[in-house]
């Protein structure tokens, strides 16, 4: 198990380096630069700016500088918000996105599992179809339709929740964005869970439990355990995406999270900001993949003994 863990971590480092390199050079290939604006800057000033940010050095040297500062945990100064470093921007934005994302994922796991379990347990033919249908609806409806509808209903008509803003994380302000983030995830988890449970319940070892007249909670406990692996595999990737912020949700609800930096950074050719978001997202994906692998190994003894790195 330790060997398995170490091997995965060792694999993650070169992967991250490759992603950083790709992002760094691709960004520089894009036309334009961080100091372009409608009114051209004085050439002297532009030159000084480029000098201060070391943008006049050879590209490889810049890459090397970037890696060095990254190794110290420094994402560098933002080229667009010139009074802030990227670290400062992230320090306020990332906790907000993580707070919303964590709650959304928790909600998705709980509600999705409950729905999937309900569908799989239902004795009638209709139960599973209702869950499937509702889930399909949740997957198909785009976030930019759901969010304004929620604002309209709970904010403008019922006046019980604020339509937007962060308000230092007051719980009222979090409810609608969390629901919006969670809905498509709930739908996917419910569908995955229901399908996996239906397969699990048809397995011979579940028939054995029935043949021994074991109580329902025991049978469903075993079935859930067998149904979790595919759901966990999905949750890993979903968590990495949801926790690092959603552009659309954060924009609609006016939340100062990470999401907007994806867009603003790329449009403003804010090299350091783009690199920062890439590193954060890539690290999150790698981290959650590692967690998924560990959880799967914990869930299934066969993975635990047979899994080999590579």
């Amino acid at each position, binding site marked *: 198990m*330790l*060997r398995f863990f170490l091997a995965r971590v060792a694999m993650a480092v070169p992967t991250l380096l490759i992603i950083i390199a790709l992002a760094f050079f691709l960004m520089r290939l894009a036309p334009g630069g961080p100091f372009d604006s409608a009114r051209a800057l004085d050439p002297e000033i532009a030159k000084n700016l480029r000098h201060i940010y070391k943008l006049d050095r050879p590209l490889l040297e810049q890459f090397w500088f970037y890696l060095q500062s990254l190794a110290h945990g420094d994402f560098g100064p933002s080229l667009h918000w010139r009074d802030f470093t990227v670290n400062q921007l992230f320090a306020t934005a990332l906790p907000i996105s993580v707070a919303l994302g964590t709650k959304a994922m928790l909600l998705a796991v709980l509600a999705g599992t409950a729905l999937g379990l309900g569908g799989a347990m239902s*004795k009638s033919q209709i139960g599973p179809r209702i869950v499937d249908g509702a889930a399909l609806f949740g997957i198909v409806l785009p976030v930019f339709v759901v969010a304004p509808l929620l604002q309209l209903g709970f904010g403008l008509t019922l006046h019980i929740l604020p339509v937007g803003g962060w308000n230092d994380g007051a719980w009222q302000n979090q409810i609608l964005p969390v629901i919006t983030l969670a809905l498509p995830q709930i739908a996917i988890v419910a569908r995955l869970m229901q399908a996996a449970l239906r397969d699990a319940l048809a*397995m*011979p*070892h579940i*028939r*054995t*439990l*029935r*043949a*021994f*007249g*074991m*109580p329902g909670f*025991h049978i469903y406990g*075993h079935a859930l*355990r*067998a149904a979790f692996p595919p759901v966990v595999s999905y949750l890993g990737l979903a968590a990495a995406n949801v926790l690092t912020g959603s552009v659309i949700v954060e924009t609609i609800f006016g939340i100062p999270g990470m999401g907007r930096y994806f867009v603003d950074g790329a449009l403003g050719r804010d090299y350091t900001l783009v690199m920062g978001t890439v590193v954060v997202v890539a690290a999150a994906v790698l981290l959650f993949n590692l967690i998924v692998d560990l959880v799967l190994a914990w*869930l*299934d*003894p*066969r993975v635990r*003994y047979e899994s*080999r790195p590579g």
Partner: protein
Amino acid sequence: MDVSAEPLLQLRDLRVSYGATLAVKGLSLTVRRGETAAIVGESGSGKSQTVLAALRLLPRHAHTSGSVLFEGMELLTLSQKRLDSLLGRRIAVVFQEPMSSLDPLFTVGSQIGAVLRLKAGLPRRAAYARAKELLDLAGIAEPGRRLHAYPHELSGGQRQRVAIAMAIACNPDLLIADEPTTALDVTVAAKILDLLAKLKQSLGMAMIFISHDLGIVRRIADTIHVMRNGEIVESGAAAKIFANPRHDYTRVLLENMPRARRHARRDAPVLLRAENIGVKFTLRGGLFEAKRAFTAVAGVSLCLDQGRTLGLVGESGSGKSTLARALLKLVPASGRISFDGRDLAGLDRAAMRPLRRSMQLVFQDPYGSLSPCMRVSDIVTEGLRVHDPAISRKQRDTRAALALEEVLLDPELRQRFPQELSGGQRQRVAIARAMILKPRLVVLDEPTSALDRTVQIGILALLEDLQDAHGLAYVLISHDLAVIRAAADEIAVMKDGRIVEQGPTQDIVERPREPYTRSLLAAALQTGEA
């Protein structure tokens, strides 16, 4: 058996239907206290359906009617709660597949422990202690250590012992064993049968033993019920049925044990010669352990003439399949192999390819070895696409039809998918796939083990016809001496990667020298064959 003992389980006019299809057609039988009743019949005859229906374990879309009385209680109308309180405590079941009937995600101890806690009301610690006793009772060595093992860490026989331990946990009055030995090697199966007979005696249980194999049933049953197409065609005391079978179908079942084949001696050239073959696998050690080498095959030499059959027998794990793969150069091996006078040692993959069409392989599992997403015609002709890429689509289709006819299948089946065929049909497809390339050597890896006796006979006869027609040489791998005896000219007995005894079939069967061969023969004899 005491005929006057009171009835424990009575089935009256039991019917099971799936839509318009009747799986069980008005079946009645009585099992008395302490009796061992066997239900015998081919797969699909409704044996398992009968007991699953009696315990209400069938899927929801199955419709059950009739009456099932357990000690006078009607099981079909009992509340689920009261039925559950009987199941596991008074009535217990052992299923066929010991791998899949145990939960792979839980240790053996926790699964037996759960039955003891939830069905017998034992507290956790007492349940574990009792689970250990049960494993010991079921003949598992080191029960204390095995409690913490997961099912995949145990052998097939050990898993079945665990399933039996779980079944006897609450001292049931009735044990239902659904083909408990079918998935096991003969030697292991014989031991499991002994265990069941012993436990039945000491615990005073009644038993319903379901099997397709009359040879196995003969050893254990007091009464036999022969089933066919959802009906009981003959019932009676075991001794009577074996001595004087009245129904034609019972006679067919009794006669359907493979007979020894005629051994035509021919002076044919040597096709395959192997000298001193060895196969080693490297096992990865832990973080701080060195790698270990595992020797699967060591120092095996053999020789096979054109048009003849070499039978490789041995228990599972003895290296039979590995040796066969080494002979075809499918696993790296040391030693010398020559095929049709050509030394294979120096040939790389590309140089082997033209030779590959002359050496084909048929696998054991007709369910796993055919791709479920390809039509039969594509499966059968896939080899042609590699070896004869110039052939047109239409020609391929014709060839597929011819190949299916050769294995006595309806050519129309070529448009179907494998999962729409029966086990025997699938194995014929697998054979057609090998034969379409006109090979000279075919390795048959347990080609009949997953099949019923009656289907086995058909496959063996087909293989013999094909051999005579095309002068094929076979390497036939089986753990079943009855099959080997019926089909092989020569036998090589394998144990722990070595050939312990080798010679003409007649000699080996009649005058075995090695104790191991004798024990294999004894096991086959005990189950009523060979």
